[in-house]
């Protein structure tokens, strides 16, 4: 059973990536370049040690966004608010981290908890609006993304929480002292954020929580059928609220790897767009922590290797086309796989039915 589950689970993403490759192959051929050469170039560039490190660091952030989206998906929540939650998490993590002086491990832990709290509480607004007022979390989260950006921009002014270091144009929070920084792992001519281990731990915790605990069962049950969960004794609206907060708390960690191992302060230069990426990665990774990890790596890889295309005279936007077609085909592929799977099971059930009937007959 597990073997066939792994087969069915990987079939769809592999098919989606293949069909996207074929699509890009055609586009590149039309442009008059040799697609195989380009693919080979991208792979060899992407697997250079130095690039691998930077891809891995980007993977960490994408991974957190993907897991945050996946928790939401399990509850049929479309957490498009990951952007705002991540900003809130990174910003308040940076502010609190810079404001205190604690022993190293405690200091880092405090920053991580602050980030999760900030992300979670920010998401709680959307959760409250959904559960109590019936407002779609998509609408409220899009608005909350703007509001979060505005609040942070306001708080980053020099007379409040921001500073403008000499020679910089970029308003930022004060530097987190050394005790609140996370070390990097020196490898492959680069530095890997040690936040990687936190990310892996979050992935494992997510999986265990979801598949092994009663809480996770209730969460999945509510996502699968609100009414059935409620009838079974689950406080279904409460579960939706808590899940929103959990998703936001994980989203709060998206920028923490960069913050603690690289920049040590939050600035307006922290990138946007993690929500869409996170949702796409959760979809591609089938809400599974391992799947999301590979998806996040694939995304980072594609983005890192996009410049290669430019050398060959091909617009680097091809990578975006590739990402887009992957997401598009994955939706189709999952639906197909799910149908085939169900049909197979129904067939197996039919067999049993037929056997049972003939047994009854012969008695």
């Amino acid at each position, binding site marked *: *059973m597990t073997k066939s589950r792994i087969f069915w689970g990987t079939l769809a993403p592999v098919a989606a990536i293949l069909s996207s490759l074929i699509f890009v192959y055609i586009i590149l051929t039309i442009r008059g370049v040799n697609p195989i050469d380009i693919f080979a170039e991208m792979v060899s560039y992407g697997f250079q040690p130095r690039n691998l490190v930077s891809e891995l660091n980007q993977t960490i952030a994408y991974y957190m966004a993907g897991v945050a989206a996946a928790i939401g998906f399990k509850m049929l929540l479309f957490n498009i608010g990951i952007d705002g939650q991540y900003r809130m998490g990174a910003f308040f993590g940076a502010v609190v981290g810079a404001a205190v002086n604690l022993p190293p491990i405690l200091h880092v832990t405090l920053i991580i908890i602050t980030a999760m709290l900030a992300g979670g509480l920010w998401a709680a607004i959307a959760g409250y609006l959904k559960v109590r007022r019936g407002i779609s979390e998509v609408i409220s989260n899009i608005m909350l993304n703007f509001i979060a950006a505005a609040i942070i921009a306001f708080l980053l002014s020099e007379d409040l929480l921001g500073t403008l270091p000499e020679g910089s144009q970029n308003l930022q929070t004060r530097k987190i002292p050394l005790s609140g920084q996370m070390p990097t792992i020196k490898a492959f001519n680069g530095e890997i954020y040690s936040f990687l281990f936190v990310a892996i731990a979050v992935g494992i915790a997510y999986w265990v929580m979801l598949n*092994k*605990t*009663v*809480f*996770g*069962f*209730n969460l*999945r*049950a509510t996502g*699968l*059928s609100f*009414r*059935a*969960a*409620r*009838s*079974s*004794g*689950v*406080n279904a609206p409460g579960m939706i609220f808590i899940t929103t907060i959990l998703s936001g708390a994980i989203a709060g960690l998206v920028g923490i790897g960069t913050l603690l191992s690289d920049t040590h302060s939050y600035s307006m230069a922290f990138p946007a767009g993690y929500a869409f990426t996170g949702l796409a990665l959760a979809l591609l990774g089938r809400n599974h922590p391992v799947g999301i990890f590979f998806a996040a790596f694939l995304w980072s890889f594609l983005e890192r290797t996009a410049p290669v295309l430019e050398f060959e005279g091909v617009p680097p936007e091809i990578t975006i086309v590739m990402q887009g077609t992957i997401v598009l085909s994955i939706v189709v592929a999952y639906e197909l796989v799910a149908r085939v799977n*169900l049909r197979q*099971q*129904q*067939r*197996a*059930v*039919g*067999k*049993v*039915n*037929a056997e*049972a*009937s*003939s047994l*009854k*007959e012969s008695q």
Partner: protein
Amino acid sequence: MVNILEVDGVEKKYPGVIANQGVSLHVREGSIHAIIGENGAGKSTLMKILYGLVRPDAGVIKVFDREVSLKSPQDAIALGIGMVHQHFKLADNATVLENVILGSEPSRFGFAIKFEEARKKLVEIAHTYQLDIDPDESISNLGVGERQRVEIAKVLFRGAKILILDEPTAVLVPQEVSELFTNLRELVNKGLTVLFISHKLDEVLAIADEITIMRQGTTVASRKPHDTNKKELAELMVGGELPRPKAGAQNISSKSILTIKGASYSRADGREILRGVNLDLHGGEILGLAGVEGNGQSELIELIMGLMRPSSGTVEVLGLNTVTTPTRDIRNAGVGYIPQDRQRDGLLMSAPLWENRILGHQFSQPMAKGIWVNKGSAAEDSKRVVAEFDVRTPGVNVLASALSGGNQQKFIVGRELSGDPHLIIAAQPTRGVDVGAQAIIWEQLMKARTRGAGILLISADLEELFSLSDRIAVIYGGSIVSILNPSTTTAEDLGLAMTGAISA
């Protein structure tokens, strides 16, 4: 009269499964022809073949003596075959007229819908076949019976001469069933032909001109209603003697396990759904709750399960006040709940059976161990349920949605009876299930009663109510209007009480 529809030697095989084999069916024009059979006997496959949804591997289908090949529902409609599905396909926020014309709108230049023309045609159809429908009423205001009439009108609007009705009475209450039968009679009087799929023998005997019985994918016999009886039909369907529950020795305890005192409930819009309901259920007793659907049964169940709060009055389950006790604690105290809508309230359709076994039991041993779900015991106990309740499945890793309705229901009943609950709320426990599954479910409910459990049996099946209940309470307009003794009450008395004609 001639045969309007002839099916001969039709066969449909899926890998490993013979859905139809050697199916023959001769339907006379202007008759009501019933097809009966257990779940999985091949009725649905045959109907899908006739409606062009499934293509047979072999066999001949003749419509009006002409051999036809049905490749799609469009082909079927063009030949005058229309299907009224069991689950209505209507848009709630549109009017009756809009729903009827949807998909076959009479239009000018392909875009301007000729509403007046359509309305005229619909009114004419309604008048000819005496279907009581208002073209401008919104579907959301209609009851189940009325919605079904709209579905019938929809099919007639498309020029159907042969109407296939897939278990049309499964969703209806007795009064609506008799209305439907009047309508069907009117249709055949006007020359149409009706194919009526069912597994309710009483109804088939009452309405059909001819009955074809299916078993294991094939047609086993045809009978005229006046030449046969229920017993023979049931035997043809199951291929053996029909098991019947034996009323076990009465062992009603003095302890009340469910006490409802003056419970009222009003919806947010002020509509009073329940008015001062008083009920009392003892251990070892089956209390039937009879009533036309929509008279407050669903709300009463929700009050008992702590899913809703009464506006006034109290509901006490096993000594717990359900107003202040969350549903999970009510369940934990030993309450089994078989919901009336099994797929929406009773199952996680896209989850495997073993996870469905946990549902409703996830807050206590043995399905949970502290904060952890106990997969081992869930899988093991699922296997027990599958064996004890004859759930036809290759294993417990199969998704609930892969099972047929009757097997899903057997699984739910098995789950809800595990752990020997003190109180069982059984809402329509055998609705839509075949005779074999019904017998198993009845037997198990009786067993639970014998061991001392109290059962509140909410059912629209009078036979079920009469053969299982120790007492029958009748709910009408949100009140309990009478409490009857099943051994001295006739079905007629009950019917009168259910329609509010008499009260206690």
